[in-house]
């Protein structure tokens, strides 16, 4: 079910309507029913039911067992490991079997061995990557004593499958959401208004901006023989914006719906394109994924005995400071490889959203002293607008480069795109017509420019407080006027309906 489709709109109206009509003690049950319908919409089969039940039962049973044997470290650890192994095992089987098969096939080919592993085509449930990690964190949190296990299996199922977050996140923690999720909620007019405004803004981002950018990017990347040089450069620069507006727009829709219900979800984006370094960028981009990996992989890894031993051993050879960096970078490398792999079972994801991010961050860290030295020698001021702008643009360009791999169909395709960018044809930007042949005409570009200016203005304003709160403080004429403009911009300028693939969410497949 698409987040910007009429079907989803109707689904939400019915689900929320029933939610506020039924007695409050049954509200969570309505959410569960809605989530089950959403989960199996167009995807109901024996295989998908087994997938969902496997994760649910593993989380539920081992959650209770870990809780029960909290005082027995060995037993609780064993239950934790088994629980995680089951959840992770099904995720790997469903999403990464083909990656392993392709890798082994490549190796066999290199060794001239005439044997190839077949590829499997499992039909995995929507949101599998989200609910798998969410349930792993649930087990770990019980083990750590951060929360208690849920004794009601249906309530546990709701935590696993809460429908708004299944397509694009954000990652939720049991402890943070328990009260809201199972709590009794009275219909609140102000929450509804705030939730609706956020949802409408999200739909605007997806249908007016992201889909429009996608038309250009898809046209160029789909025909690299025709669209060379600056076409490819523009497409590469457009893609991060397409990804951002698609992903953050979906999150806005999800947060808005949840706000109407009375469930408060953690923020996932805080104007990432105003970041001055890639490290800062990732603190503002898909924040809940970063936090999840930091809390459940990076810190445990860094504090693990293996890493401590490594630090000790390398300390003798490279010194104290360098040895700490080695452990840090190794933990980062593992974490970023996992981030890359989480995005999809292909090397393009591992390189694009994993290894390249790691490499750039390491370079930022190691070259910072040198950069400071050069700046000091040349007398370059770092606290002025122009330097900050340079840093923002540099970060955007670096991220755009990494996303070439993320978007490409294969590593070879990514290399082809990069090579393609070096064809010298700047006139396609200047002759006033060529650029308008790649999926977007001049009117679309005008809409895009105005929309992007609006987007960045809102993002910039959001850094100094909630834009919605600022809007709600305005007079009714301005407030309603802005809302009508936004709604009709979506209705008229949105890329939906006949001739469009309505919002095939980029992050949905994860």
């Amino acid at each position: 079910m698409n987040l910007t489709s009429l079907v989803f709109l109707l689904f939400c109206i019915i689900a929320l309507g029933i939610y506020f009509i039924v007695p409050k003690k049954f509200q969570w049950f309505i959410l569960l029913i809605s989530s089950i319908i959403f989960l199996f919409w167009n995807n109901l089969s024996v295989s998908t039911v087994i997938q969902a039940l496997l994760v649910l039962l593993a989380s539920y049973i081992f959650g209770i067992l870990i809780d029960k044997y909290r005082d027995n470290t060995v037993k609780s650890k064993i239950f934790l490991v088994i629980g995680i192994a089951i959840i992770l095992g099904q995720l790997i089987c469903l999403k990464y079997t083909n990656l392993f098969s392709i890798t082994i096939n490549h190796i066999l080919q290199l060794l001239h061995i005439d044997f190839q592993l077949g590829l499997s085509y499992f039909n995995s449930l929507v949101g599998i990557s989200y609910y798998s990690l969410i349930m792993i964190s649930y087990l770990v949190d019980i083990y750590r004593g951060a929360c208690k296990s849920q004794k009601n299996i249906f309530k546990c199922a709701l935590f696993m499958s809460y429908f708004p977050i299944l397509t694009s996140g954000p990652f939720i923690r049991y402890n943070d959401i328990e009260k809201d999720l199972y709590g009794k909620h009275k219909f609140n007019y102000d929450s509804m208004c705030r939730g609706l405004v956020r949802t409408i803004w999200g739909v605007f981002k997806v249908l007016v901006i992201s889909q429009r950018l996608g038309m250009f990017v898809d046209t160029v990347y789909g025909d690299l023989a025709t669209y060379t040089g600056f076409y490819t450069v523009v497409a590469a620069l457009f893609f991060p914006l397409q990804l951002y507006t698609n992903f953050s727009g979906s999150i806005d829709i999800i947060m808005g719906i949840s706000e109407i219900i009375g469930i408060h979800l953690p923020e996932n984006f805080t104007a990432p394109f105003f970041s001055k370094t890639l490290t800062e960028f990732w603190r503002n981009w898909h924040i809940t994924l970063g936090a999840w990996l930091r809390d459940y992989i990076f810190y445990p890894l860094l504090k693990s005995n293996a890493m401590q031993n490594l630090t000790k051993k390398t300390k003798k050879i490279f010194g104290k400071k360098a040895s700490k960096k080695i452990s840090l970078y190794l933990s980062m490398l593992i974490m970023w490889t996992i981030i890359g792999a989480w995005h999809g079972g292909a090397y393009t994801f591992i390189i694009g959203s994993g290894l390249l991010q790691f490499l750039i961050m390491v370079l930022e860290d190691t070259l910072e002293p040198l950069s400071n030295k050069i700046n000091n020698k040349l007398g370059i001021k770092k606290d002025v607008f122009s330097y900050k702008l340079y840093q923002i643009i540099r970060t955007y360009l670096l991220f755009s480069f990494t996303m070439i791999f993320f978007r490409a169909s294969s590593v070879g395709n990514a290399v082809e795109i990069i090579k393609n960018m070096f064809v010298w044809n700047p006139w396609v930007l200047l002759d006033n017509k060529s650029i308008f042949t790649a999926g977007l005409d001049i009117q679309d570009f005008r809409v895009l420019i105005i929309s992007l200016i609006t987007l960045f203005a809102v993002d910039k304003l959001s850094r100094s407080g909630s834009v919605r709160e600022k809007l709600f403080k305005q007079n009714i004429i301005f407030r309603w006027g802005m809302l009508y403009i936004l709604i009709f911009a979506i209705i008229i300028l949105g890329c939906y309906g006949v001739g469009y693939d309505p919002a095939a969410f980029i992050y949905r497949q994860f």
Partner: protein
Amino acid sequence: MKKVIKSIIFLLILCIFFYNIINIFWLEKNSISYFYEEPKNSLDIAYIGSSTVFCHFNSVLAYDLYGFTTGILASPAQPFILTKYVMDECEKYQKPKLYIIDIYQLASELNKYYEEVNLRDVTDAMKFSRNRTNAIKAFLEPLDLGENNPNYKSGDNYINYEFSFLLYHNMWKHLSNKNFVGSLDLYKGFLCSEETVQINPQKEYYWKEDLVKLPNVVEFPKENKEFLDDLLNYIHEKNLNVLFVVPPRLYSEGRNITLNQAIKIIKENGFEVINFNTLEDFDVDYSKELFNGSHLNVYGATKYTLYLSKYLKEHYDLPNHKGDEAYASWENEYVRFKNDFKVLTKKDFNKVLNKYSN
């Protein structure tokens, strides 16, 4: 309570804006959209069919001559299966004394000939209602157009037809004054051209083209027979007064055979059919009176209108509204038509005019 009222006002304003925007975002107004502009129960006749209706019958000229009003509910290549639904729509707003149904489309096979636009021209112009939904379903459901029709684009997606705004919102790039003020090319649904194309029937110019599109239509298509039977049942059930016509046009031999079969069935059901191609006292000069291969120009259309309107006046009890203030728009539209087509006063044409009007 204050919040509820505020919400209602907000939604009301939203609906008003939306309704007006939907009306602007059209490809172009057609004859059916103009039908809705007529005051309730003001039409004496409803004329239903395809382009051979709105290009051939000049309803404002008929009004000027005899004072009765004719609503044109026609669209390009209007699929015959939709006739029943168009009649039903007409019954909701008007109580015409007579329906005229053009049966030219009965010779076309639905799943080979029609395109998405042929359905859209009818249902997109219709107001949102259960009848409209039924019309869409009737067109889509019995047919596997998705694979059979190369012109078919989104037929499997019923919702795109039901909510036509899903298609037309893209029109923002192509808005013109026509979207805001309506088309000035139509006179109460009648479309006219002064241009003349010379067709030599001996060389079977248009027949050949027709045969390419409909290579084997010599037998009355099974589906069309079902559509016709269904329509005749509907007419009997509603007890409506109907006249069927075969418009003047160049036909392939196959179409003639097909139409004759249809005429036979209609006559067996007790209805009258006028076949303009076999009338002894009516003839079209295909070298002068066509503006394209199959449609009459202003001369041919005037000739056709004069003949048919005279026939209608003589055979049916139709009122004369001339001089009635309530029908001033018909008078005004005739004046506009006369001013736009001054060619009608030419001497040689007047001879023909006199022949049919006396």
